[in-house]
Protein backbone atom coordinates (compact mmCIF):
# COMPACT_ATOMS: atom_id res chain seq x y z
CA UNK A 1 0.00 0.00 0.00
CA UNK A 2 1.50 3.29 -1.03
CA UNK A 3 1.62 6.07 1.50
CA UNK A 4 -0.92 8.66 0.42
CA UNK A 5 0.58 11.40 2.56
CA UNK A 6 3.96 10.86 0.92
CA UNK A 7 2.37 11.11 -2.52
CA UNK A 8 0.50 14.28 -1.55
CA UNK A 9 3.42 16.11 0.05
CA UNK A 10 5.69 14.96 -2.77
CA UNK A 11 3.35 16.29 -5.44
CA UNK A 12 2.66 19.62 -3.74
CA UNK A 13 6.13 20.56 -2.49
CA UNK A 14 9.03 18.27 -3.32
CA UNK A 15 8.23 17.65 -6.97
CA UNK A 16 6.09 20.70 -7.54
CA UNK A 17 4.64 20.25 -10.97
CA UNK A 18 5.58 23.74 -12.16
CA UNK A 19 8.76 24.57 -10.32
CA UNK A 20 10.51 21.23 -10.44
CA UNK A 21 8.87 19.23 -13.23
CA UNK A 22 8.40 22.18 -15.61
CA UNK A 23 4.85 21.27 -16.53
CA UNK A 24 2.09 23.79 -17.15
CA UNK A 25 4.46 26.69 -17.72
CA UNK A 26 2.33 28.43 -20.33
CA UNK A 27 -0.57 29.18 -17.94
CA UNK A 28 2.00 29.76 -15.18
CA UNK A 29 3.34 32.77 -17.05
CA UNK A 30 0.19 33.59 -19.00
CA UNK A 31 -2.37 33.80 -16.18
CA UNK A 32 -0.21 34.94 -13.27
CA UNK A 33 -0.57 38.69 -13.60
CA UNK A 34 -3.53 38.96 -11.25
CA UNK A 35 -4.27 36.97 -8.10
CA UNK A 36 -7.97 36.66 -8.93
CA UNK A 37 -7.44 35.05 -12.32
CA UNK A 38 -4.69 32.88 -10.85
CA UNK A 39 -7.18 31.54 -8.34
CA UNK A 40 -9.73 30.82 -11.10
CA UNK A 41 -7.22 29.02 -13.25
CA UNK A 42 -5.92 27.12 -10.23
CA UNK A 43 -9.33 25.79 -9.23
CA UNK A 44 -10.09 24.76 -12.81
CA UNK A 45 -6.78 22.85 -12.96
CA UNK A 46 -7.33 21.13 -9.59
CA UNK A 47 -10.75 19.97 -10.72
CA UNK A 48 -9.74 18.74 -14.17
CA UNK A 49 -6.52 17.14 -12.95
CA UNK A 50 -8.28 15.14 -10.24
CA UNK A 51 -10.97 13.95 -12.66
CA UNK A 52 -8.46 13.23 -15.43
CA UNK A 53 -6.43 11.04 -13.05
CA UNK A 54 -9.57 9.17 -12.04
CA UNK A 55 -10.64 8.62 -15.66
CA UNK A 56 -7.33 7.68 -17.24
CA UNK A 57 -6.46 5.15 -14.52
CA UNK A 58 -9.20 2.59 -15.31
CA UNK A 59 -8.65 3.10 -19.04
CA UNK A 60 -4.94 2.40 -18.68
CA UNK A 61 -5.29 -0.48 -16.21
CA UNK A 62 -8.30 -2.31 -17.65
CA UNK A 63 -8.18 -1.42 -21.33
CA UNK A 64 -4.62 -0.75 -22.43
CA UNK A 65 -2.52 -3.00 -20.15
CA UNK A 66 -4.48 -6.29 -20.54
CA UNK A 67 -4.46 -6.04 -24.34
CA UNK A 68 -0.83 -5.02 -24.52
CA UNK A 69 -1.77 -1.66 -25.98
CA UNK A 70 0.47 0.44 -23.76
CA UNK A 71 1.94 2.14 -26.81
CA UNK A 72 -1.45 3.74 -27.50
CA UNK A 73 -1.48 5.58 -24.20
CA UNK A 74 -0.40 8.97 -25.58
CA UNK A 75 -3.23 9.00 -28.11
CA UNK A 76 -5.80 7.60 -25.70
CA UNK A 77 -4.98 9.94 -22.84
CA UNK A 78 -5.02 13.09 -24.90
CA UNK A 79 -8.30 12.21 -26.60
CA UNK A 80 -9.95 11.28 -23.29
CA UNK A 81 -8.73 14.45 -21.60
CA UNK A 82 -9.79 16.69 -24.49
CA UNK A 83 -13.22 15.08 -24.64
CA UNK A 84 -13.65 15.35 -20.90
CA UNK A 85 -12.78 19.03 -20.83
CA UNK A 86 -15.23 19.73 -23.66
CA UNK A 87 -18.00 17.85 -21.83
CA UNK A 88 -17.35 19.66 -18.57
CA UNK A 89 -17.46 22.97 -20.38
CA UNK A 90 -20.85 22.17 -21.90
CA UNK A 91 -22.33 20.86 -18.65
CA UNK A 92 -21.14 23.83 -16.61
CA UNK A 93 -22.35 26.30 -19.22
CA UNK A 94 -25.81 24.79 -19.15
CA UNK A 95 -26.34 24.16 -15.44
CA UNK A 96 -24.03 26.50 -13.59
CA UNK A 97 -23.75 29.75 -15.55
CA UNK A 98 -22.21 31.53 -12.55
CA UNK A 99 -19.43 28.98 -12.28
CA UNK A 100 -19.00 29.05 -16.04
CA UNK A 101 -18.38 32.76 -15.91
CA UNK A 102 -15.68 32.22 -13.28
CA UNK A 103 -13.97 29.14 -14.72
CA UNK A 104 -15.24 28.93 -18.31
CA UNK A 105 -12.57 30.98 -20.00
CA UNK A 106 -9.84 28.84 -18.47
CA UNK A 107 -11.26 25.49 -19.51
CA UNK A 108 -10.30 25.53 -23.21
CA UNK A 109 -6.78 26.51 -22.18
CA UNK A 110 -6.55 23.40 -20.08
CA UNK A 111 -6.78 20.91 -22.95
CA UNK A 112 -3.31 21.81 -24.11
CA UNK A 113 -2.02 22.29 -20.60
CA UNK A 114 0.80 19.81 -20.41
CA UNK A 115 0.39 19.54 -16.64
CA UNK A 116 -2.84 17.54 -17.01
CA UNK A 117 -1.40 15.16 -19.56
CA UNK A 118 1.85 15.00 -17.59
CA UNK A 119 0.09 13.92 -14.42
CA UNK A 120 -1.83 11.21 -16.29
CA UNK A 121 1.44 9.90 -17.76
CA UNK A 122 3.22 10.08 -14.40
CA UNK A 123 0.43 8.07 -12.75
CA UNK A 124 0.89 5.35 -15.36
CA UNK A 125 4.67 5.48 -15.12
CA UNK A 126 4.76 5.28 -11.32
CA UNK A 127 2.13 2.54 -11.25
CA UNK A 128 -0.07 4.18 -8.63
CA UNK A 129 -3.35 2.59 -7.58
CA UNK A 130 -6.65 4.34 -8.35
CA UNK A 131 -6.67 6.16 -5.02
CA UNK A 132 -2.98 6.96 -5.33
CA UNK A 133 -3.57 8.42 -8.80
CA UNK A 134 -6.47 10.56 -7.65
CA UNK A 135 -4.49 11.82 -4.65
CA UNK A 136 -1.51 12.52 -6.91
CA UNK A 137 -3.72 14.39 -9.40
CA UNK A 138 -5.42 16.44 -6.70
CA UNK A 139 -2.13 17.28 -4.95
CA UNK A 140 -0.40 18.19 -8.19
CA UNK A 141 -3.32 20.55 -8.85
CA UNK A 142 -2.86 22.09 -5.39
CA UNK A 143 0.86 22.42 -6.08
CA UNK A 144 0.10 24.16 -9.38
CA UNK A 145 -2.33 26.57 -7.70
CA UNK A 146 0.15 27.28 -4.91
CA UNK A 147 2.90 28.14 -7.38
CA UNK A 148 0.51 30.22 -9.49
CA UNK A 149 -0.76 32.17 -6.47
CA UNK A 150 2.74 32.88 -5.17
CA UNK A 151 3.80 34.00 -8.62
CA UNK A 152 0.80 36.29 -9.11
CA UNK A 153 1.44 37.86 -5.71
CA UNK A 154 5.00 38.59 -6.73
CA UNK A 155 4.01 39.96 -10.12
CA UNK A 156 1.36 42.25 -8.66
CA UNK A 157 4.08 43.81 -6.53
CA UNK A 158 6.50 43.97 -9.43
CA UNK A 159 4.07 46.34 -11.14
CA UNK A 160 5.27 49.02 -8.74
CA UNK A 161 8.94 48.12 -8.90
CA UNK A 162 11.45 50.00 -10.97
CA UNK A 163 12.62 47.19 -13.23
CA UNK A 164 15.29 47.85 -15.88
CA UNK A 165 13.59 48.29 -19.24
CA UNK A 166 14.97 45.16 -20.87
CA UNK A 167 13.90 43.04 -17.88
CA UNK A 168 10.33 44.33 -17.76
CA UNK A 169 7.41 41.90 -17.95
CA UNK A 170 8.48 38.37 -18.90
CA UNK A 171 12.22 38.36 -18.13
CA UNK A 172 11.68 39.57 -14.57
CA UNK A 173 8.88 37.01 -14.22
CA UNK A 174 11.37 34.29 -15.16
CA UNK A 175 13.86 35.63 -12.60
CA UNK A 176 11.13 35.51 -9.94
CA UNK A 177 10.30 31.96 -11.01
CA UNK A 178 13.96 31.03 -10.61
CA UNK A 179 14.00 32.37 -7.03
CA UNK A 180 10.71 30.61 -6.30
CA UNK A 181 12.13 27.35 -7.66
CA UNK A 182 15.22 27.83 -5.53
CA UNK A 183 13.02 28.26 -2.47
CA UNK A 184 11.04 25.12 -3.31
CA UNK A 185 14.24 23.11 -3.64
CA UNK A 186 14.56 23.34 0.13
CA UNK A 187 11.64 20.91 0.35
CA UNK A 188 13.67 18.22 -1.35
CA UNK A 189 15.66 17.85 1.88
CA UNK A 190 12.57 16.53 3.67
CA UNK A 191 12.71 12.92 4.73
CA UNK A 192 9.46 11.26 3.84
Amino acid sequence: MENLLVIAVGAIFVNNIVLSRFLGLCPFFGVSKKTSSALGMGSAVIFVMTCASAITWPIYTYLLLPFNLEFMRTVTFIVVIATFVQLIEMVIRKYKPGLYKALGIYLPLITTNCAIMGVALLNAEEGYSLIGSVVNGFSAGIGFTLALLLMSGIRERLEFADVPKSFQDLPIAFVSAALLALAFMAFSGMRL
Partner: protein
Amino acid sequence: MREEVKRILGIAIPLIIICIISGAALTATYGLTEERIEAVEQQKINESLSTIFLGASFTEMDDYYIATVSGEEIGYAFIAEGTGYGGTIRTMVGMYPNGTISGVSIISQSETPGLGTRIAEPDFTNQFSGKRIEGVRLRRDGGVIDAITGATISSRAITDIVRERAEVVMNETR
Protein backbone atom coordinates in the same frame (compact mmCIF):
# COMPACT_ATOMS: atom_id res chain seq x y z
CA MET B 1 -34.71 14.97 -38.83
CA ARG B 2 -32.87 13.29 -41.71
CA GLU B 3 -31.04 16.52 -42.34
CA GLU B 4 -29.91 16.52 -38.73
CA VAL B 5 -28.60 12.95 -38.93
CA LYS B 6 -26.77 13.77 -42.13
CA ARG B 7 -25.15 16.80 -40.54
CA ILE B 8 -23.97 14.85 -37.51
CA LEU B 9 -22.64 12.00 -39.68
CA GLY B 10 -20.84 14.53 -41.83
CA ILE B 11 -18.97 15.69 -38.77
CA ALA B 12 -18.49 12.32 -37.12
CA ILE B 13 -17.35 10.20 -40.06
CA PRO B 14 -14.15 12.13 -40.89
CA LEU B 15 -13.17 12.04 -37.21
CA ILE B 16 -13.82 8.30 -37.02
CA ILE B 17 -11.83 7.69 -40.21
CA ILE B 18 -8.88 9.64 -38.82
CA CYS B 19 -9.00 7.63 -35.61
CA ILE B 20 -9.08 4.33 -37.52
CA ILE B 21 -6.18 5.31 -39.76
CA SER B 22 -4.20 6.50 -36.76
CA GLY B 23 -4.88 3.25 -34.88
CA ALA B 24 -3.81 1.18 -37.87
CA ALA B 25 -0.67 3.22 -38.44
CA LEU B 26 0.34 2.92 -34.81
CA THR B 27 -0.27 -0.81 -34.66
CA ALA B 28 1.88 -1.22 -37.77
CA THR B 29 4.68 0.90 -36.26
CA TYR B 30 4.45 -1.03 -33.03
CA GLY B 31 4.74 -4.30 -34.92
CA LEU B 32 7.81 -2.94 -36.70
CA THR B 33 9.61 -1.80 -33.57
CA GLU B 34 8.35 -4.31 -30.98
CA GLU B 35 11.12 -6.88 -31.44
CA ARG B 36 13.78 -4.24 -31.48
CA ILE B 37 12.49 -2.62 -28.26
CA GLU B 38 12.35 -5.97 -26.49
CA ALA B 39 15.87 -6.79 -27.64
CA VAL B 40 17.09 -3.44 -26.33
CA GLU B 41 15.44 -4.01 -22.94
CA GLN B 42 16.80 -7.55 -22.71
CA GLN B 43 20.26 -6.38 -23.65
CA LYS B 44 20.22 -3.81 -20.84
CA ILE B 45 19.44 -6.59 -18.36
CA ASN B 46 22.08 -8.93 -19.79
CA GLU B 47 24.73 -6.24 -19.68
CA SER B 48 24.04 -5.41 -16.07
CA LEU B 49 23.96 -9.12 -15.15
CA SER B 50 27.39 -9.69 -16.63
CA THR B 51 28.91 -6.75 -14.74
CA ILE B 52 27.87 -7.99 -11.30
CA PHE B 53 28.95 -11.65 -11.71
CA LEU B 54 31.84 -11.77 -14.18
CA GLY B 55 31.83 -14.82 -16.39
CA ALA B 56 28.81 -16.45 -14.78
CA SER B 57 25.79 -17.89 -16.54
CA PHE B 58 22.29 -17.18 -15.30
CA THR B 59 19.11 -19.17 -14.84
CA GLU B 60 15.94 -17.14 -14.55
CA MET B 61 13.72 -17.97 -11.57
CA ASP B 62 10.40 -16.34 -10.60
CA ASP B 63 11.76 -12.96 -9.67
CA TYR B 64 15.50 -13.44 -9.44
CA TYR B 65 18.34 -15.08 -11.34
CA ILE B 66 20.66 -17.82 -10.09
CA ALA B 67 24.27 -17.25 -11.09
CA THR B 68 26.37 -20.32 -11.77
CA VAL B 69 30.02 -20.77 -12.69
CA SER B 70 30.75 -24.16 -14.29
CA GLY B 71 27.66 -25.71 -12.78
CA GLU B 72 28.24 -24.41 -9.29
CA GLU B 73 25.81 -21.94 -7.74
CA ILE B 74 27.67 -18.83 -6.65
CA GLY B 75 24.95 -16.29 -5.94
CA TYR B 76 21.74 -14.55 -6.88
CA ALA B 77 20.98 -11.57 -9.05
CA PHE B 78 17.77 -9.61 -8.90
CA ILE B 79 16.22 -6.37 -10.08
CA ALA B 80 15.44 -3.80 -7.39
CA GLU B 81 13.48 -0.70 -8.24
CA GLY B 82 11.99 2.23 -6.39
CA THR B 83 11.51 5.97 -6.43
CA GLY B 84 14.53 8.26 -6.41
CA TYR B 85 14.64 12.04 -6.59
CA GLY B 86 13.48 12.45 -10.16
CA GLY B 87 11.66 9.20 -10.88
CA THR B 88 12.07 5.46 -10.84
CA ILE B 89 15.53 3.97 -10.30
CA ARG B 90 16.01 0.40 -11.57
CA THR B 91 19.06 -1.49 -10.45
CA MET B 92 20.47 -4.97 -10.91
CA VAL B 93 21.89 -6.35 -7.69
CA GLY B 94 24.15 -9.37 -7.21
CA MET B 95 24.29 -11.12 -3.84
CA TYR B 96 26.23 -14.07 -2.50
CA PRO B 97 24.24 -16.69 -0.52
CA ASN B 98 25.79 -15.45 2.74
CA GLY B 99 24.16 -12.01 2.36
CA THR B 100 27.10 -10.08 0.95
CA ILE B 101 26.52 -7.85 -2.06
CA SER B 102 28.66 -8.80 -5.04
CA GLY B 103 27.84 -5.76 -7.09
CA VAL B 104 25.22 -3.19 -8.07
CA SER B 105 24.58 -1.83 -11.54
CA ILE B 106 22.04 0.81 -12.55
CA ILE B 107 19.72 -0.28 -15.36
CA SER B 108 17.80 2.96 -15.64
CA GLN B 109 17.34 6.18 -13.71
CA SER B 110 16.14 9.71 -14.33
CA GLU B 111 17.91 11.69 -11.63
CA THR B 112 19.19 15.26 -11.95
CA PRO B 113 21.98 15.38 -14.58
CA GLY B 114 25.37 16.08 -13.05
CA LEU B 115 24.20 15.36 -9.52
CA GLY B 116 21.90 12.39 -9.03
CA THR B 117 23.08 10.72 -12.23
CA ARG B 118 26.42 10.12 -10.52
CA ILE B 119 24.81 7.18 -8.70
CA ALA B 120 25.36 5.30 -11.96
CA GLU B 121 29.12 5.90 -11.92
CA PRO B 122 31.45 3.09 -10.75
CA ASP B 123 32.91 5.34 -8.03
CA PHE B 124 29.60 5.13 -6.28
CA THR B 125 28.32 1.66 -7.25
CA ASN B 126 31.63 -0.08 -6.45
CA GLN B 127 31.11 0.86 -2.82
CA PHE B 128 28.42 -1.80 -2.55
CA SER B 129 30.67 -4.70 -3.49
CA GLY B 130 31.57 -6.89 -0.55
CA LYS B 131 29.23 -5.15 1.90
CA ARG B 132 26.75 -7.08 4.09
CA ILE B 133 23.14 -6.16 3.31
CA GLU B 134 22.57 -4.77 6.83
CA GLY B 135 25.33 -2.25 6.20
CA VAL B 136 23.86 -0.93 2.96
CA ARG B 137 22.86 2.46 4.33
CA LEU B 138 24.40 5.90 4.06
CA ARG B 139 27.12 6.65 6.58
CA ARG B 140 24.97 9.33 8.20
CA ASP B 141 22.18 6.75 8.62
CA GLY B 142 24.56 4.36 10.37
CA GLY B 143 25.77 2.38 7.35
CA VAL B 144 28.93 2.09 5.30
CA ILE B 145 28.05 3.83 2.00
CA ASP B 146 29.32 7.34 1.29
CA ALA B 147 26.64 9.59 -0.20
CA ILE B 148 27.38 11.68 -3.28
CA THR B 149 27.83 15.33 -2.30
CA GLY B 150 24.73 17.25 -3.30
CA ALA B 151 22.73 14.13 -4.09
CA THR B 152 21.87 12.71 -0.70
CA ILE B 153 18.31 11.90 -1.75
CA SER B 154 19.36 9.85 -4.76
CA SER B 155 22.10 8.12 -2.75
CA ARG B 156 19.73 7.28 0.08
CA ALA B 157 17.05 6.10 -2.33
CA ILE B 158 19.36 3.62 -4.00
CA THR B 159 20.68 2.19 -0.70
CA ASP B 160 17.10 1.71 0.51
CA ILE B 161 16.01 0.13 -2.76
CA VAL B 162 18.92 -2.30 -2.77
CA ARG B 163 18.72 -3.22 0.91
CA GLU B 164 14.96 -3.76 1.05
CA ARG B 165 14.89 -5.96 -2.03
CA ALA B 166 17.99 -7.87 -0.91
CA GLU B 167 16.33 -8.72 2.40
CA VAL B 168 13.28 -10.08 0.58
CA VAL B 169 15.37 -12.21 -1.78
CA MET B 170 17.48 -13.41 1.15
CA ASN B 171 14.35 -14.78 2.83
CA GLU B 172 13.06 -16.35 -0.38
CA THR B 173 16.24 -18.22 -1.18
CA ARG B 174 16.89 -19.45 2.34
